[in-house]
């Protein structure tokens, strides 16, 4: 099994995936709002970048509304890999509650 690392999912990553699966796609600040303060705006973007590198989420750019202007927003959605990893971790957590902690 050398060279094959099991996918890992931190608590924040798991929360982000849960929210993305529930809402289909969200941008960073919506994730912070939906998480009820469990995600912070200073760390959510770094976590999303790491999750994108792991292949758990994908993103696309969307132009800002013309009346607001500014930079295009990055919108995130879960990938098939992300959904599978979340499913596996949720099942494992259900079977072994101490594993979830």
């Amino acid at each position, binding site marked *: 099994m050398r060279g094959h690392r099991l996918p890992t999912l931190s608590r924040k990553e798991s929360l982000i995936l849960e929210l993305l699966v529930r809402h289909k796609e969200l*941008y*960073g*600040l919506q994730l912070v709002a939906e998480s009820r303060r469990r995600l*912070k*705006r*200073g*760390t959510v*973007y*770094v976590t*999303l*970048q790491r999750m*994108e590198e792991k292949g758990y989420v994908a993103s696309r750019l969307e132009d*800002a*509304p013309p*009346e*607001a*202007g*500014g*930079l*295009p*927003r*990055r919108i995130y959605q879960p990938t098939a890999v992300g959904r599978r990893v979340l499913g596996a971790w949720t099942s494992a957590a259900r079977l072994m509650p101490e594993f979830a902690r």
Partner: protein
Amino acid sequence: MTRAGNRLRAFASRLCCAETMERVVDPLIADLQLEYAKAVHTGSLWRSRWIRIAGGVALLKVIALCGGRSAFDEGTADEHRAMARTITFSAVAMCALVALCEAPYWRTLQLAVQAQQTRMFLYLIPQALPIAFPIGLTIGILFGFRGRVVSARSKRAVLTMAVAWSAISFAILAWVLPAANQSYREWVFRTYGQITPLLKGTSELTLAELSGQIESYRHTAMAGSSLVRDLTFSYHQRWSLACATAVLALFALGVLGRRPSARWTLGLAAVGGCFAYYTLLFLGRSAALGGSVPAFAGAWLPNVVFVLVSILLLASRQSTAPSPA
């Protein structure tokens, strides 16, 4: 007027790589701009101001996280070894310094153990930490990077680590140390049968309490008294000492040369630098309490001097660096 977040973006672009800008900073700024535009549109002046502040804080956090991550993840094997050596040397030096600072209280500690009050030992530790952090990290940096060329990435990693230690130091000086000091005094007085609670001295006041006391004396006849000077100096010293870790880390990076240095040279630089820092702090304190200089000037004197010396050292290294062939 510039669009909200444009200045923050320009600032971040100086410190972050293109990928971090695209994947982390730009999404943050885009969300900030949209949130700000919504707040302005609804006429929420205070909310729009709050969004700018929160966005700035979030961006600083992102820069710190990305800076640390890129330095630790992307560095070469030699850079990783040097960082590991720095952390190890710093940890050993910090533990030794804490033990050294606790030594005068050895008899009290023995009494505490006899009375089964071993947690008293914990009350004495916070007073040693704001001294142990800057000296320990300075020694760690000088010996961790001994004989190596310190890359820009390593410098960023070291400074990120130093700023983190400074933040911890600030929390200790502002809240933990006053509470620990007061608990320790009350325990000693209880041991000798005195009535507690005790009135707090200057060292036992938190930052907010110090500030409150200074304010209460501001418009009274006591305003220029030695008591108020002592309180004001103590207030500024808490901030200044918290920055000592970052300032001495900068000094250590300035001292590290391009050529391998002997252990004794680095040892001398570490001891001499720290000794000079605390001598300046002592002189600043004497001058401030004597009324010769304002309290904030006395407290910040060592930091100002050491930042200037560090900048000169770093600039001289750059000017003497050999140009690429």
